[in-house]
Each structure stands twice: as structure tokens, then as C-alpha cells.
């Protein structure tokens, strides 16, 4: 799966959790733009992990701010096989 396809799926999952005031895109920051509360972050990441059949450790998440960052992390962990 390509980075852009992962971004599309990540946005779909995000829209399932929080209403999209502006259209989400790869530049959308998960907390400051999408407004995910701390429990929603956990919920979202669990959904992402289940969707791509991966596990993401805290260290990898420390570099994630935007949807695009998360797509990069997913791509890296899944080895592009997702």
C-alpha cells in the first residue's frame, strides 16, 4: 500500500471518531487540528493498528504529529505490505 492510500484510510478512520470541520488531509495534526482527546488518541491508534495489522510502539509515536506522519510510521512498520 502506498503512502497516499494509507493517508486516505487513516482519514476515514479519523472521521469515524471526530467530525471533520475542515476536510482532513495529510497535514492535519491529530490533536491540535482534529481535536482528538487523549482517550480518543488511544482509540484511534488501536483502530489503526487493527486496520493495518501492526503494533506501534511509543517511541515511533513520538515522531507523529500529523496524519501524514502516522502514514509514514504505518508504512515503515508494515514494510509497505499493508
Amino acid at each position, binding site marked *: 500500500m502506498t503512502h497516499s492510500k494509507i493517508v486516505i484510510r487513516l482519514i476515514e478512520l479519523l472521521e469515524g471518531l471526530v467530525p471533520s470541520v475542515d476536510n482532513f488531509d495529510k497535514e492535519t495534526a491529530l490533536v491540535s487540528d482534529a481535536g482528538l482527546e487523549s482517550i480518543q488518541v*488511544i482509540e484511534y491508534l488501536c483502530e489503526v493498528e487493527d486496520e493495518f495489522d501492526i503494533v506501534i*510502539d*511509543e517511541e515511533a509515536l513520538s515522531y507523529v504529529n500529523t496524519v501524514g506522519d502516522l502514514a509514514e510510521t504505518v508504512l515503515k512498520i508494515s514494510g509497505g505490505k499493508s
Partner: protein
Amino acid sequence: MSLFEKFSEARALERALMELPVNPTGTIISEVVSATEAIIDGKLKIMAGTNNYLGLTFDTDCIAAGQQALLEAGTGTTGSRMANGTYQQHLDLEAEIADFFDYSYGMVFSTGYSANIGMLTALLNSEDSVLIDSEGHASLFDGCRMSGAKIYRFKHNDPEGLRKRLSRLGKASKDALIVVEGLYSVRGDCAPLKEYVDVKNEFGSYLMIDEAHSLGLYGENGRGLAEDQGVSDEVDFIVGTFSKSLGSIGGFCVSNHPELSLIRYASRPYIFTASPSPSVIATTRQALKKIGSCPKLREVVWSNAKFLHSGLSQLGFQIGADVSPVIGIPFKEREVALNYWQNLFNKGVYTNLILPPAAPDGGSLIRCSVTAAHSKEQISFILDAFEAIKNG
């Protein structure tokens, strides 16, 4: 950035809190009247926000044991367990806490926080994986982070989520450590330990349970939730604190792994701090005996817990289904929670106010707890205060 510039957010928060009639994070107890009452701001308050579950802080036997130890062994050890800070009483308590849990080995730390940090940093390194409940206590997260291990969170009380994550770890799942609590201290809900044990056994992983808030409350012998759910034999490490049901201070780990003794050589929070003072050890040992000899204490605290839970439910508060001595009352709006807390305080009831980000769901909570020392009249007083505020 200057050294103190990073505190600008904390400064703003402090200013906002200082502007309140009473700062919920800065209440000063000028006099402790009993296990359930204190003087705050010059007025008597019923304490409904402590962790003194068995009400042992004023137990005459515990106080006498502490006084005797002060006279016999002095005020402090002045040293580390690895130097001049190991007294026979420390070893006696370690044997007694292991015996209490029916485990082979016990280890005592100076606080519950240092027990969790000390165990996790010693057990784990950067090659290890740890899976932790997303609502675990800060000390558990801090210990995991300080260890350098790969940290994977799973949703609160979700054994299936844990199972999925372990299955994705492949071979690493066999040596992974699972970290959960027994009774969670904010919402007052309990972990499904039996299901966690099933998952652990499926993958051959290790399980650590923090029974800080469940020790003395659950199980036939008061050992905690693992005993209550019949899984004590299958838990690798039980950690906890002496500062709640035992009314003292300190932390511990018990295990059937003989390697627990090696932790003493690897755990910096154990090595590089002074050992618990003799009076603390003495009151802890006495309180531990009380749990065994006075099952009535558990009967009373559970009766009180049911009374408070039932009363708050009848008042229409959306509280969790698990009845426990800890009840978290959720509020969506921070201001509403703050207002409730303030009004309870003004009516003579001290509770805990938990605001984001400390509240687990991004909302706010009032944490209310009862003890074996509360009378039914005191709990009625607490309920009356809630009702009066609710009815405006």
C-alpha cells in the same frame, strides 16, 4: 529558552487555581482529627477522598508499634538497603509480605512509586517489549519509559486488544511483560485478570499486576484482586504500596521467581535511596497483621462502599457498574466538576477533583472514596451534600 520558561503553562495553571475560592490541588490539612475527619481552612471536613481504605491510620496497635520502633531503633536508617539501611525488620517485613501473598519472595521499596519504577527499570531493557493498559498509573508508564523497552498500549480493560497486539509481536511475545492494575484508582473499576492470565498463558508472556488499590480489599484473605479472581498462582509479579490500605508508606514486589533477589543489584530506585524508617516498617507490619486478623474491616468497608454506590446511583449520577470503595463521578464540563467539588467542600465534604489530562476520558471527575472507618451517618452526610448540590 531560559531554564524556567518551560514552566509558563504551569504558571498560568497555578494562577488560575489560585484565583478559585479554594484551590483543589492545594488544600492544606491543618489538623487530622481522625481517619475520616480533618480540619481544612479552619473547618471540619469529612474526608471522602483518601486511600485509607481500612481506616488504619489511627489504629492503636499500629501507632503503638510505630512508637515502640521509634524508641528502639530511632527515627531513620540514614542509608540505603545496600549499605547501612538493612535492618532485621526490613527482612522480616519482606518475609511477611511474601507470606501474606503466599508467594516465595518479597522485596520492599521506600515508596510505591519507587517499587514500580524499580521493578520495571530492572526487569526491562531496550530489547524487551512491554504491553500496558492505557489507563495504568503514571508510575507504571514512567518505569516502562525509563527502562527503554518498546512500549505498546492497549485499550483499558481489553484482554482481546492485548491478545491481538501480542500476536503481532511474533516471537517477542514470549518474553513480553504485560502490566495492568487490579482496582483502578480513578474510576474504581476492576481489571479482568482471569482473561489476562489466559492471554499471558497463550503466548508464554509475563504478567505484572499493581494491586496498590486492591490490597486489603479483595479476596478471601485480603490479598487483592488476583486472589479474588482465583489467579494468584499465575501472576509473575505483584507490586503495590503500603500507603493505602496499610496506612503507612512504602512499596513492595512479591514473586515466585527466585530472580527477584537479583533485582536488588539492578534496581537503582532500590539502591540509591534511604530505606524505610523503622517506625514505618513497624506500622506496616502491624497493619499487615490486621488485614489477616480483622476480616471485619473488609466487611465494613464493603458495606460502606455499597451504601455510597447505591446512594449516588439513586441520585442519578452516571457512575460505573463495579461497586468498589472508589467511585469516579464523571462530568463532561470542567467547570461543572469544579463547581461540584467546591460546593461539596463548602458543605464539609472533601473529595478529589481530577481534571484533564489526569482524567482518563478527557473529561473531569470527582473521585469519592470511603473507608472502614466511616460511619453510616458520615456517608449519609456525603450523600446529602451531593443531593443538595444536584437539586441546586
